[in-house]
């Protein structure tokens, strides 16, 4: 079933695959994000209770959900690296960590900016915000571990162990609004059943969400290429590439 993936265990094949992916997905990202954010800012209706500050929702919720998604992706990569010894999985985990940190940071800041007018406070130590902050520290810890080891293979394994230990945080974040009485509101968009949002708010949300997903793919591909290059810098194909592109 996975036979079609086997050629991509070769770093050179994957590098050239990203060469083809990045342009297409960049166009897709730009289109989706421009449509989504313009719709969110200009055309979506203001919320009945929250007014125009609801427009922050279109950034806050996608980035928050995707920050958890990035962590899960990183954990799966770590698992593949530790259990099946995929060398490229190390590289992809290393490339995902900074992106996850930025997305977690954005979700915390937009959440604070939304919370101040709505609930009167920039920050509160409830379960969801605290566990999201822990997620940020976990991402920073993984980045720090990757940079602390000289040998990239060791760094990947160490960071992988930390990622897998910290995976327990994800269900805590997800179910924190159900398990505890928090200031944070419950889920507005659920995948099963009807979302509790009207369609003219749902559409810009979907566009923004998909736009952010493809943005993550593009940035991950860019960073993934960096990792492949630095880990394979002795190979002849890398030398050729560097001489043709970098030796200016």
């Amino acid at each position: 079933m996975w036979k079609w993936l086997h050629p991509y265990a070769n770093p050179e094949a994957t590098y050239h695959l990203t060469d083809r992916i990045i342009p297409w997905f960049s166009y897709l990202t730009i289109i989706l994000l421009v449509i989504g954010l313009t719709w969110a800012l200009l055309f979506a209706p203001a919320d009945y209770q929250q007014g125009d500050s609801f427009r922050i929702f279109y950034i806050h919720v996608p980035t928050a959900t995707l920050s958890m998604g990035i962590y899960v992706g990183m954990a799966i990569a770590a698992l593949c690296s530790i259990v099946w010894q995929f060398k490229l999985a190390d590289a992809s985990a290393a490339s995902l960590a900074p992106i996850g940190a930025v997305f977690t940071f954005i979700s915390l800041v937009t959440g604070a900016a939304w919370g101040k007018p709505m609930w009167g406070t920039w920050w509160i130590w409830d379960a969801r915000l605290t566990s999201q902050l822990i997620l940020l520290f976990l991402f920073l810890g993984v980045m720090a571990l990757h940079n602390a080891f000289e040998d990239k293979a060791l760094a990947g394994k160490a960071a992988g162990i930390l990622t897998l230990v910290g995976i327990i945080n994800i269900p805590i974040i997800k179910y924190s609004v159900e398990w505890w009485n928090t200031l944070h509101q419950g889920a507005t968009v659920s995948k099963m059943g009807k979302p509790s949002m009207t369609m003219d708010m749902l559409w810009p949300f979907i566009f923004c969400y998909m736009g952010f997903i493809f943005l993550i793919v593009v940035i991950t591909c860019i960073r993934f290429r960096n990792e492949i290059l630095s880990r394979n810098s002795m190979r002849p194909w890398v030398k050729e590439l560097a001489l043709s592109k970098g030796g200016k």
Partner: protein
Amino acid sequence: MQFDSINAFLSMGGYGFYVWLSYGITTLALLLLILLSKQKHKQTLQHIAQRYNRELKRKEAAALQTSALASNTENTLSTVASEKCKSEHDKSVK
């Protein structure tokens, strides 16, 4: 359009500061991430190219040295050989 004028758009029903703070920081953070990642790509390629060129230069210098050494030894050997010939010739002449 939900807004009647640019001013209404900027003030966002009173929540302008918070909305624009969020959108602004988001744009800034994402732009920084993208630009830094791309810059690192260029930098990595440049470093690899530089390192390769340095190694090439070192190899060439080493090759030059060994060839100079080899030609020197050749010269010394040939001079020794020719002197030996000469001395034998002299001896035979004497």
